[in-house]
């Protein structure tokens, strides 16, 4: 089972030019528990080819949201950047396997 099978929506956005933030809207307490327990920060770090220590994780039960924030894999608008608004990283997270 992958993240997309369980949740309502995965959104990725710039949080300024140097940070990326990924919001997983789980929709229900059950789905929230599934993501909180089944999607490790390490797995997200591997998908984004980044050091897990640089990822800030927020498990927000009242909103049924799991949020990850990290230094942007490429700085917004840099020559190697492929996605000015940072929305394209969301499908990558939505396609991750769950434990």
């Amino acid at each position, binding site marked *: 089972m992958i993240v997309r099978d369980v949740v309502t929506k995965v959104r990725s956005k710039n949080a300024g030019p140097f940070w990326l933030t990924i919001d997983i809207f789980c929709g229900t307490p059950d789905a929230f528990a599934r993501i909180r327990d089944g999607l490790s920060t390490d797995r997200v770090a591997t998908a984004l080819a980044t050091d897990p220590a640089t990822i800030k994780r927020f498990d927000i039960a009242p*909103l049924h949201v799991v949020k990850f924030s990290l230094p942007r894999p490429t700085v*917004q608008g840099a020559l190697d950047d*492929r996605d000015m608004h940072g929305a394209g990283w969301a499908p990558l997270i939505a396609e991750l396997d769950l434990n």
Partner: protein
Amino acid sequence: MTRILIPSGALGLGYDQIALDRGVAARPDLIAIDGGSTDSGPSYLGRGLSKYTRAGTKAEWAGLIRARQAAGCPLVIGTAGTCGTDSTVDWLVDITHEILTEEGLTAKIATLKCEQDPAQIARAALTALPGAPDVDPDTIASCTHIVALAGAEQIMAALDTGADIIIAGRTTDTAIIAALPLQRGDHAGAVWHGAKVGECGALCATNPQSGVLLLDTDATGFTVTPLADGARATPHTVSAHMLYENSDPFILHEPGGYLDVTDATYTALDDRSVRVTGAEWHIADAYTVKLEGARIAGYQTVALVTIRDPHYVANAAAWCDDILQKHAAKVTARMGPQDYDCQLRIIGQTATLGALDHSPAPASEVGVLAIVTAADQATAHDIAKLLNPYLLHHPLTRDEEQPTFAFPFSPPEIDKGAAYAFVLHHVMTLRDPMDAFRLEVLA
């Protein structure tokens, strides 16, 4: 109590006129709108230009000037013209004069300018924020524009002039909303929290595109009410908005301190309004302003070719790698050693995610986007021209018949001009909040 009318998340995005009229009838103390963001990339700051057209900006701004006139309250815009440089402030001032003349109106205008001298910033003591790039003084000095983000304090100074219309350069998104209620002594935590919730207009509600939002702040909390038909704020939509484009959903840093919404509670007042209490404002030891800068990273020429032949679609990555190798040798042979960057991005496979994309689904066709960046436009153009024979005819193996691929344009090369890069993610400490800013009341 203070009542702020927020027409939309940014000037240029449009707003619902009926909802705006409703907001004016509700007798706001201030109309506040954001004019920009870094979200569209470094080019706007680098060039000192607005993302939106003059005509579109004028039409929307004229509607807000009429709303201000009807409401009899000040109108404030922050980050005028997308990037908030002095040039975009002047641009909006020019548009404002034009509107006032055409409509037969008069208004006292104040401007707040936020641009910094790159040479001076290169020598200043700066503190890097988390995730900041490495920068040396030469890189900073090479910025075409640097702006400092003004906070509520500078907007308060602008309000103190008694201006009817305040056109500010780069400000934090929240400062233009927070300044007046803070001046009036409303609860600081509630003010900043309300400003954060409201800064994107009705994005904190259902029907987020409708734009118009009413924000009431007072001694204990704030109430948010979207004004368009069918738009509703709920405890969920309002609390979830703290996630939006925020790296930390509970903490928000501003020049004079930080907001903590960890203990906030959200209560539905009716089926469209939400009451929020419990956020705390913490005053910082030092007054720091964030800086944004952009410099030219090079000049670009791009080209696009599309491929439908299944053999080439299936082997597009190998085809691109081979072209890059042969092209690099050709560039050196024809032009001598060059300092440049050449990328081929395969649209339909990995153009969005690059090497991170491990399982792109097979497509029936792909596009190959070539991006050449060099120190000047002529060099970038020539290097891109040397790519053309490969993009047109390069065979995967020597044995096959010469293939031909699809170009949507002639000539295939498109000169893009300067490419800009964001340089600064740093703060600067000020003794007085006005030290880096210039306030002017126009005659």
